């Protein structure tokens, strides 16, 4: 076999350019595989590390575990590590100057919990002994305390009591005014207690059983979410779990476990849970995302992600095989004479095939190693880009990971690519009859006839004999050019289609987030158990918001529903309400905003009082976009229906008659955000229905001069006592728009990068085919010149050939790309409406790219051919 190695290596060295171009193709394919696999590994590692950083390094939490029965977990053979917390103690938050958050929930951590559970400290350390405490920073920011590391806190520890009954530490404050809600809860669950308490509804009390002094050792921003309560009355603080013996304790604790084999986490958790059935009221468990990310068996998310990555890898390998096969086919065709000669002197088919595979193996090894290196570099760049653009959006820092299996997978998949790429050319090489090599018939194609090479007279008339020869050559070399045309077609179609997808995303962001009328959106939630006169309170808070320094204009709204009878007023083909009723949205606007809107749509001053504005157009997206009116109402029409309100915490409907002052298709501010921007509605001033409460939250669209500053002002306002019981969620639409743009940029980088690399693999094939074919025909060209074709005519012939070749690729690729773009537009038209536009820019870029690739390759070959001596070229041996 030494001869075969020598033969292979020497031939590769003889055709350096083609060998290098093929290696580049393999390298790009390997790099793409490596990058996809490596980025998925990096992403998973990032998720795992983020989970450990924000939650902790455990796989499951068991809640309400009897402290005297811990051994069922702690002595389980599959439990590698565990820790215990309890959050049963509560103390008064005497440092608080705020009515809200009157309590501190003491969360006990043992030593292992300090390691296993995540706590984000801004200062100091976790407790290491009894008498030490870590406090949340909210104790200072929300409660106006001024505690620092090293300070001492006196905490009255006790129980919340109401009517002789202990209340859970997370329950809202019970006063005589809201005790009815609490009573209604216990009416069914504990009738005896209900009977005892129903007539006496005092405020709750706090019974202190001990006062403790704690030294502040640390201040935290966040702690493991599994270890704390989330309520409106307390803040969690971490204290040391004393070394008491829990063997006989009746306390219920939480246990956090890390298993030795996380893949069976579900099975182990179920076993443990069952073991507690006989000895307790039952324990519940929650598996963490860390368990899922480490591949616990029943996790579908992991499997789905792996499958997606596998599909992408198969696509890469398939496309690579498709183009790289052609490179080996060219290599074989160049050596047809040699293979024929080898066969004539006794080389077997197996030996011939082995030379092709040997070339593949050599190219594969070089391509794989360089591809892995390139893949690593690309991964490092991508990780840096993602962190720069997206770390705040992802709420995690992406890390670079390159486990050994990525390199192995890359090598394996590249080997598969090379094997399948060599298979057909190897068989073709083995089949070359020696007689054709002896005859020097390099263009062996028994099926070629004059009829098959016939060209139209139009070509001769338009382009002369050069055009005829160019056209005949393309027909002669159909198979050779097919792969390269397909490579270019795929690249063009993918680029045009994907560009349109990216443009679609950009248009959607622009449509959704760009509004000159507002740049913030706020929703207000109120807790009816602590807030009375919700409507007035809400209005008062909005008034305060509108007076903030950075708020220019505020458009408040409240929305609810108005039910109509379909038979009377409905458009039945649109509505599918089974009870035959449908509803219009009701937007309750401030009087000032309503007046402004009414004037805008043309309501006359005399009709302003009691005006009801109807905007009931509905857009149906589909193959053809249709716009309906949902009702048949006209201006001046009266209609009967029921307004949905809130009464004593329940929904109710109030019958009433309304009269349409104006029908319009001009929508109130924020319409595109309410109901997804496509619902019939009526607009009325809120004062009209001031007597009612409504079930939904109220909101506002805010125009500011500095969105970020206005957001901070609103958040600070909600921390004051005046807004107790109310919460406002502010959405910075400008910031969201900027975030979405960053997401789009990141997605673009990945998608375009993928398309460009796949296209480049195809381009290597294009360069190989064209340059080899030009060399192959060197004697033909020399003969043409020898019989009198001028240099100018010759160059023109070659340019015609590249024009025909490039035009064919574009003629197929561009329509496919446009079809993909159109299909994507229609696919997303249900989510948002963006009119389809021909992706002219990306089409133009594709035309230029194809012209450049094909033209440049042919030009280089042309320069080489024009330098050659005519007679020497003709005399050259066939081999």
């Amino acid at each position, binding site marked *: *076999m*030494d*001869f075969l190695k*020598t*033969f292979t290596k*020497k*031939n590769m*060295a*003889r055709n350096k350019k083609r060998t290098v171009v093929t290696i580049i193709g393999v390298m790009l394919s390997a790099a793409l595989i490596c990058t996809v696999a490596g980025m998925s590994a990096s992403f998973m590692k990032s998720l795992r590390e983020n989970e450990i950083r924000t939650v902790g390094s455990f796989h499951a939490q068991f809640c309400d575990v009897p402290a005297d029965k811990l051994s069922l977990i702690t002595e389980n053979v599959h439990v590698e590590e565990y820790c215990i917390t309890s959050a049963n103690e509560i103390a008064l938050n005497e440092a608080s100057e705020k009515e809200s958050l009157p309590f501190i929930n003491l969360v006990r951590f043992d030593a292992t919990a300090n390691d296993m559970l995540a706590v984000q400290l801004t200062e100091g350390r976790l407790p290491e002994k009894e008498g030490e405490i870590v406090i949340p920073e909210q104790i200072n920011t929300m409660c106006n305390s001024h505690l620092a590391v090293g300070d001492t806190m006196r905490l009255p520890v006790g129980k919340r009591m109401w009517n002789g009954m202990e209340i859970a530490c997370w329950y809202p404050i019970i006063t005589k005014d809201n005790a009815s809600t609490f009573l209604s809860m216990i009416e069914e669950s504990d009738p005896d207690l209900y009977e005892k308490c129903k007539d006496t509804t005092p405020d709750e009390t706090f019974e202190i059983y001990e006062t403790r002094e704690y030294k502040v050792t640390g201040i935290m921003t966040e702690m493991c979410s599994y270890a704390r309560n989330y309520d409106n009355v307390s803040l969690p603080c971490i204290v040391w779990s004393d070394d008491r013996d829990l063997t006989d304790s009746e306390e219920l604790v939480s246990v956090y476990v890390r298993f030795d084999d996380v893949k069976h986490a579900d099975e182990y958790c179920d076993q443990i849970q069952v073991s507690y059935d006989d000895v307790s009221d039952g324990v519940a468990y929650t598996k963490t995302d860390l368990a899922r990310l480490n591949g616990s068996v029943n996790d579908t998310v992991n499997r789905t992600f792996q499958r997606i990555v596998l599909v992408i890898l198969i696509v890469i390998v398939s496309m690579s095989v498709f183009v790289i096969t052609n490179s080996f086919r060219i290599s074989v065709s160049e050596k047809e*004479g*040699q293979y024929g*000669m*080898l*066969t*004539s*002197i*006794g*080389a*077997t*088919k*197996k*030996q011939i095939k082995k030379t092709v595979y040997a070339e593949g193996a050599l190219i594969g090894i070089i391509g794989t190693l360089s591809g892995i290196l390139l893949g690593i570099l690309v991964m490092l760049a991508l990780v840096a880009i993602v962190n720069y653009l997206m770390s705040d959006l992802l709420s995690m820092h992406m890390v670079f990971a390159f486990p050994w299996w990525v390199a192995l997978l890359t090598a394996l998949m590249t080997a598969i690519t090379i094997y399948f790429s060599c298979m057909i050319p190897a068989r073709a090489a083995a089949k070359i*009859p*020696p*007689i054709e*090599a*002896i005859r*020097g018939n390099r263009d062996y194609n028994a099926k070629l006839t004059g009829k098959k090479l016939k060209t139209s007279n139009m070509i001769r008339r338009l382009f002369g004999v050069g055009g005829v020869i160019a056209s005949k050559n393309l027909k002669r070399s159909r198979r050779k050019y097919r792969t390269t045309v397909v490579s270019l077609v795929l690249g063009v179609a993918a680029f045009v289609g994907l560009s349109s997808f990216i443009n679609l995303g950009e248009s959607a962001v622009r449509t959704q987030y760009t509004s000159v009328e507002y740049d913030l959106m706020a929703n207000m939630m109120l807790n009816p158990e602590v807030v009375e006169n919700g409507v007035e309170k809400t209005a008062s808070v909005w008034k305060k918001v509108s007076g903030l320094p950075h708020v220019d204009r505020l458009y408040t709204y409240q929305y609810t529903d108005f039910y109509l009878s379909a038979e009377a007023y409905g458009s039945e083909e649109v509505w599918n309400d089974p009870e035959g009723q449908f509803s219009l949205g009701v937007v309750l606007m401030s009087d000032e905003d309503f007046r402004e809107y009414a004037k805008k749509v043309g309501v006359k001053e005399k009709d302003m009082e009691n005006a009801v504005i109807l905007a009931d157009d509905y857009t149906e997206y589909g193959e053809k976009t249709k716009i309906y009116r949902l009702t048949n109402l006209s201006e001046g029409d009266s209609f009967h229906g029921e307004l949905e309100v809130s009464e004593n915490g329940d929904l109710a409907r109030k019958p009433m008659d309304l009269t349409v002052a104006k029908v319009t298709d001009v929508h109130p501010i924020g319409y595109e955000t309410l109901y997804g921007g496509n619902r019939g509605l009526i607009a009325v001033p809120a004062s009209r229905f001031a007597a009612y409460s409504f079930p939904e939250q109220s909101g506002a669209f805010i125009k500011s001069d500095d969105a970020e500053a206005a957001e901070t002002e609103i958040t600070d306002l909600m921390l004051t006592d005046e807004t107790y019981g109310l919460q406002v969620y502010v959405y910075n639409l400008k910031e969201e728009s900027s975030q979405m743009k960053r997401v789009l940029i990141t997605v673009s980088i990945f998608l375009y990068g993928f398309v460009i690399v796949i296209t480049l693999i195809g381009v290597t094939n294009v360069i190989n085919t064209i340059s080899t074919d030009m060399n192959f025909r060197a004697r033909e060209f020399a003969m043409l010149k020898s019989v009198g074709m001028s240099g100018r005519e010759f160059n023109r012939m070659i340019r015609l050939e590249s024009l025909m070749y490039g035009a064919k690729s574009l003629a197929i690729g561009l329509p496919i790309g446009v079809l993909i773009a159109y299909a994507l537009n229609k696919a997303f038209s249900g989510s948002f409406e963006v009119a389809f536009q021909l992706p002219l820019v990306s089409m133009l870029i594709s035309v230029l790219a194809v012209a450049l690739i094909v033209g440049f390759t042919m030009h280089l070959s042309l320069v080489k051919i024009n330098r050659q001596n005519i007679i020497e070229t003709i005399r050259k*041996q*066939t*081999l």
Partner: protein
Amino acid sequence: MEILRVEHLSKIYGEGEKEVRAVDDVSFSVEKGEFLAIIGASGSGKSTLLHLLGGVDRPTSGKVLIDGEDIYGLNDESLAIFRRRQVGLIYQFYNLLPVLTAKENITLPMDLDGQTPDPEKVERIISQMGLTGREDHLPNQMSGGQQQRVAIGRALINDPAIILADELTGNLDQKSTEEIVELLRVANKQNKQTVIVITHDLEIAKQADRVITISDGRIVKDERN
């Protein structure tokens, strides 16, 4: 002793009106050690006949028996092995591998057989072919005559039963032609190798033991010199 027997050998291309009988029902035999020249005009079928004898083309009908073995009864693998061991083919256009040196081209049949060439034998052949000092030259570094001698050396390295030469001097000048023909004569006389040459050069034909004349694919004359 008979080394080659040809029985009713035919090679037909095309069908019907387009049928071409390149070799038409040819039968003859060759003794071991014989120097046979096959002559004929251009297109007479002599090269086709030679290729059929060498197993590089398949006949339409008929048999070729070399050392009693019907070569067209062999499968492809066996035929390839037969070619490398029993036949030495020399072509008009040398058909050397451009990437191998003179020495590597000569030892090619042995390399294909997985054998290690005897260095002394290789040295002797190189010397016989007058290629001493050019062992490491590539074909493009040699003249036509030198390349043809490499091709002869390759044909001789495995001591084949038959050497088949197709117009091997067609591309050479007079001096090279004489040298090449002499090499074949030496191989024939000294090594007792059977040599069959295709030629249109009557001077070469005169030096053979026997001359077969082919016309339109048929033997029209078979005479001894």
